[in-house]
């Protein structure tokens, strides 16, 4: 229970920060000031008031970049996670509900997809699509839809065998109507749990790709980009690395804990 509130709380805070970034951020995240480079955070000797988490090697405000970086992280989480969820769930629902050749085709597709290691897949896709935010989102959706399809397909099959689905069909609903009104509401909780876990994965993948400079353009503030910058300054200005790292850590943990908590909440018997 507590973990649902804690993780949910962090995510809400993050979403608010991302949405109202221009209002909250104390500085322009792109503004460089070489006279103010590598300022330490407020609790350390030599800190400058107004730069709460210090500045990076180009004199950009770390806190402001962190807040703007949350935008990229959450945009990718919502769009990529959402696309993967929709793509996978639709295929899973159709396969599980219709059965027959649809099911065999989707099942086979999932098998082929999963036999391809995700990292190779990502390298290939990014090489093809080029860098940039939309490539990252497409790549994640194309790779990760199987996570949803596999589970939703199995769940839909189980649900379709239940009596209430059969009786709905007897009452005279069309197959798609039955799927929408009787099966989807029962599979939805599972999809939400998977979505939360997937968004955690997405945030990490985006951070990794921007860390190696394959995500958005290198000027835009991203946590991964900040980590890359911090990695080069690690012996001179530790805070540049620590701030985005902590943000990434908490966010990934929050998504996975929120998903686990949701699972326990929705299905107390399984825990």
């Amino acid at each position, binding site marked *: 229970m507590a973990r649902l509130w804690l993780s949910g709380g962090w995510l809400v805070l993050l979403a608010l920060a991302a949405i109202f970034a221009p209002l909250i951020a104390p500085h322009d995240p792109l503004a460089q000031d070489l006279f103010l480079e590598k300022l330490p955070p407020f609790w350390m000797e030599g800190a400058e008031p107004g730069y709460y988490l210090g500045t990076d090697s180009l004199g950009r405000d770390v806190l402001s970049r962190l807040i703007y970086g949350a935008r990229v992280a959450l945009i990718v989480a919502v769009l990529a996670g959402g696309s993967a969820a929709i793509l996978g769930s639709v295929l899973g629902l159709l396969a599980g509900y219709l059965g027959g050749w649809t099911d065999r085709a989707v099942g086979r597709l999932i098998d082929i997809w999963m036999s391809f290691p995700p990292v190779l897949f990502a390298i290939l896709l990014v*090489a*093809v699509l080029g860098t940039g935010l939309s490539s990252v989102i497409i790549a994640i959706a194309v790779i990760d839809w199987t996570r949803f399809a596999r589970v939703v397909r199995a769940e839909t099959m189980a649900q379709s065998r239940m009596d209430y689905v059969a009786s709905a069909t007897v009452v005279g609903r069309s197959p798609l109507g039955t799927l929408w009104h009787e099966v989807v509401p029962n599979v939805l909780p599972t999809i939400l749990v998977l979505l939360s876990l997937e968004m955690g994965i997405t945030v990490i993948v985006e951070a990794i790709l921007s860390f190696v400079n394959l995500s958005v353009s290198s000027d835009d503030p991203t946590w991964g980009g900040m980590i890359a910058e911090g990695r080069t300054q690690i012996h001179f200005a530790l805070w540049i690395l620590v701030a985005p790292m902590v943000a990434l850590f908490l966010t990934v*943990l929050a998504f996975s804990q929120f998903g686990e908590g949701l699972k326990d909440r929705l299905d107390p018997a399984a825990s």
Partner: protein
Amino acid sequence: MQAAFIRLLTTALTLFGVAVVVFVVIRVAPGDPIAMMLPPGATDADIDRLRAAYGLDRSLAEQFFIWIGGVLQGDFGTSISLRQNVGRIVLGRLPATLELAFYALFLAVLLGGALAVIGTLRRRGTAEGAVDLWNGMTLSIPDFLWGLIFILCLGVLWPLFPISGRISPALNPDYATGFLLLESLLRFDFRVTGDLLAHMTLPALALALPLSAVIAQVLKQSLKEVMELDYVNLARARGFSEVAVLFREALRNAALPTLTLVGVQFTFLIGGTVIVEKLFSYEGLGNLAIDAVVNRDLPLIQGIVLLFAVLFIATNLIVDLAYAALNPRLRHG
């Protein structure tokens, strides 16, 4: 015998499939790598000349057969960004990645095995609870973050290990192969061994932790089941202690289900080397792969992806063989 033949045939087919996919996917990529190679002032004639030099002016099918023919003879083409033979570059980096991956696997098995054994011997106690908690935490943190945590804690705040490179530049051993760790051991050159291990420990740990949690979880579960079986009880009645019973009777049978899983997870670990190597500036294949993608070096990307595919397929093959070797039922037909 027949099964082995079919296995080999499907392996070859899978590899061919991967080669086709890699080739097609990369050729349909938008963007012109040749244009990126040349300085801004280059004329169209310059571009065409270079395009012909790399064989990019022919039809797609032609290009594929030239490429696959070369691959079969060990010629993977020429890297655009490094202007060297792809095969030579890629094979030069392979040993570093293999040594890192196997060191990580070793650490994961050691750590995961120890946790599973402790959790089993102290089952239903606080120790098992602690093991479960640790596993849960380890699993929810990916290797990239573990790497960062290690860099911060064991590299900077408490500098026990070096955090970049494969070996200290001062040592620079003049070895015959790229398998520096292996060769240093064979040459009893333990100063080099120690230096290599120090450089490898943090990246290997970052790769190993998630895998160790998986091993600990699955192995503990199957150990607990096996420890309640009749033959284990019989061994207890023959006067063996719990520890002896676990190692002599239970471990081997419990390890079998874990083994298949470790195979699949090991391919993930190899995939993880891509980012972890970058993080620790470790000169391996993964590091190279990222540079190749950043530079849109198509021949190099092809070579690397193909080599990774070979590694994944080889891993699965080895796991199958190991499974058969450990299971007497399969060994004797």
